[in-house]
């Protein structure tokens, strides 16, 4: 990315973003105190929300929800309508930001085909497995973040039970489990503590939508099957107490000679809290072709791999084989300028989902102490903050490696309040560019001898699996 374009990106928020966030904050304040007692200020905030969505397809349902909360009946369809309004606001912010990023990166973006623009509903009819999730989420909203006690927080487990077994409901299950763990750790909030209102409302609104009968179960039909050479750029690693996901960002060179495209490939597994750091990658051992390419830095040849609208490959090791050695920085230099980025499906439009691959070179990494300890990449005087909270512990890519880097493949991220930042996926040392550190270097086992021997000694996954085998399959 050219420094001048980066300056433009960092200096100006797109029009409308601030207004949308203000409306969102107003709703979040109501969710903090509870729909049961919006108060005068909350009522005003809800009126603003109804006015702002007044000319959208959501108008009638938001109006009804605001009236219902005002007259003390905040249940029924009200939570879903409010979650819908919040999601629409987030979608507008997302669109403005992504367009701004695409302009800065000079990135061409695919259009969503007509057929995928309005998401197909679920299989039809009510799914009883969603009932428990909906009522727990409604209870949270009525009580408000400040009013959640230990029992209500623990209600996540019951809401989850019917969802866990069904892989097509995994998205809702990991979300409820992740939110539940945070509520259990923090609720009831101590008297003067402010709830993390924006975060919990984000998670809540998304869960409410995923718990609607109309929400599609599973990933939906693949748009097409693709073949060609896949060049991994890096791995975005996600973890909460009971889930681990690796999302690989890659460039696909289609075999027919069509232009290169940006795609992603994910693999995830349920886990338990104590499986962390060196024992995480073992959870994905069933995807050894994908993990082997990450650890071994080579390309992949894929044949007939399903690709969803939105750029996600439905990874299947059987449809891939290892290719030639491939340097990530070389792949990024060759393709990141021109590769076609995927369209974003309607319900995926949220600023937290923006993760645009970017190659940064020729910067000076500068540590800073205030307002909090951090790291900036200084590109000709423009400072891009590094998202230090996104450097996974299950890798050797730590602050030290990032601070000593001279080139970086990363993801552009945006968060309300902090703005744009870069999440490193891989770095090359400034003094020795051939020395690289990537987030997925441990994909086939820790490359740091200290953690490799710790893993050998403790083998937590093996120990627990052995217990599970004995106790659960009696």
């Amino acid at each position, binding site marked *: 990315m050219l420094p001048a374009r980066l300056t433009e990106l960092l200096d100006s928020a797109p029009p409308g973003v601030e207004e949308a966030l203000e409306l969102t904050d107003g709703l979040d304040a109501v969710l903090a105190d509870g729909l049961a007692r919006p108060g005068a200020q909350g009522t005003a905030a809800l009126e603003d929300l109804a006015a702002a969505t007044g000319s959208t397809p959501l108008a009638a349902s938001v109006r009804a929800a605001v009236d219902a909360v005002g007259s003390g009946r905040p249940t029924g369809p009200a939570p879903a309508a409010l979650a819908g309004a919040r999601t629409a606001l987030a979608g507008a912010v997302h669109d403005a930001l992504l367009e701004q990023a695409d302009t800065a990166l000079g990135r061409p973006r695919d259009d969503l085909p007509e057929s995928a623009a309005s998401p197909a509903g679920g299989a039809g009819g009510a799914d009883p497995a969603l009932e428990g999730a909906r009522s727990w989420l409604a209870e949270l909203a009525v009580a408000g973040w400040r009013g959640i006690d230990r029992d209500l927080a623990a209600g996540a487990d019951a809401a989850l039970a019917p969802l*866990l077994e069904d892989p097509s409901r*995994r998205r809702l299950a990991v979300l409820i489990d992740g939110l539940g763990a945070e509520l259990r*750790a923090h609720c009831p909030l101590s008297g003067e503590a402010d709830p993390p209102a924006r975060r919990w409302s984000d998670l809540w609104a998304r869960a409410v939508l995923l718990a609607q009968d109309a929400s599609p179960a599973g990933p939906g039909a693949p748009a097409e099957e693709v073949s060609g050479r896949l060049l991994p750029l890096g791995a975005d690693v996600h973890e909460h107490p009971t889930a681990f996901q690796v999302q690989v960002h890659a460039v696909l060179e289609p075999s027919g000679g069509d232009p290169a495209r940006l795609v992603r490939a994910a693999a995830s597994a349920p886990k338990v809290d104590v499986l962390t750091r060196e024992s995480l990658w073992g959870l994905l051992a069933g995807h050894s072709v994908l993990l082997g390419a990450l650890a071994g830095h080579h390309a992949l040849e894929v044949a007939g791999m399903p690709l969803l609208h939105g750029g996600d490959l439905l*990874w299947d090791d059987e449809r891939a084989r290892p290719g030639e050695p491939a340097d990530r920085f070389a792949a990024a230099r060759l393709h990141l300028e021109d590769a076609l980025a995927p369209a974003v499906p309607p319900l995926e439009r949220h600023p937290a989902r923006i993760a645009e691959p970017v190659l940064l070179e020729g910067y000076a990494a500068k540590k800073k102490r205030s307002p909090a300890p951090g790291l900036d990449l200084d590109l000709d005087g423009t400072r891009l903050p590094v998202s230090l909270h*996104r450097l996974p512990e299950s890798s050797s890519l*730590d602050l030290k490696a990032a601070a000593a880097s001279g080139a970086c493949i990363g993801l552009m991220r945006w968060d*309300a309040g902090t703005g744009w930042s870069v*999440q490193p996926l891989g770095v090359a040392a400034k003094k020795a560019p051939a020395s690289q550190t990537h987030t997925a270097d441990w994909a086939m086992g820790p490359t740091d001898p200290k953690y490799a021997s710790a893993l050998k000694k403790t083998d*937590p996954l093996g120990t627990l699996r052995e217990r599970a085998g*004995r106790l659960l399959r009696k």
Partner: protein
Amino acid sequence: MAPHAPGPPSTVPLVPPVHARKLTKVPYVELADGRVQGVVSSGSAGERVYVSSVSAGSHALSCATNNNRPCGGLGGAPCKHIRALLDEARRHYGAERVAAYLRLDPDQAPEAALSALSGPVEPGPTGVVFTRFLRYLSYLELPGTTAPLPEMHWFPAGRAL
């Protein structure tokens, strides 16, 4: 209504991290329902396990086999199972968090306060804890998926700085 603050960036996870540890002796430990509780392998009989707990505030102690036979080693002081449970809880969560959860004397160093802990013996929630252990293990029996889970973008893997 309290003045509204949107809080920290919405993509910073808020569950304090736990630490890797060896799981053969104490496969399960948790801070839940106002107790430090977990499952401890029996020293002798291979299959048998003990369910042990310490209550926050009262520091009531309980220990029994998963078939609800009371532990013979439990008197006014913690038995070896409760000792092992507290040792592993310390590794898992850190001594400070465990001591704070149990509401131990804040003027004492957490490690010392945990070592000196004692309390009345009470019947414990043996069945509940053992069921929670089985539920915990069941996560490892659930199949993984390669369908994307976009919700995980709110849970980036990170490290303590």
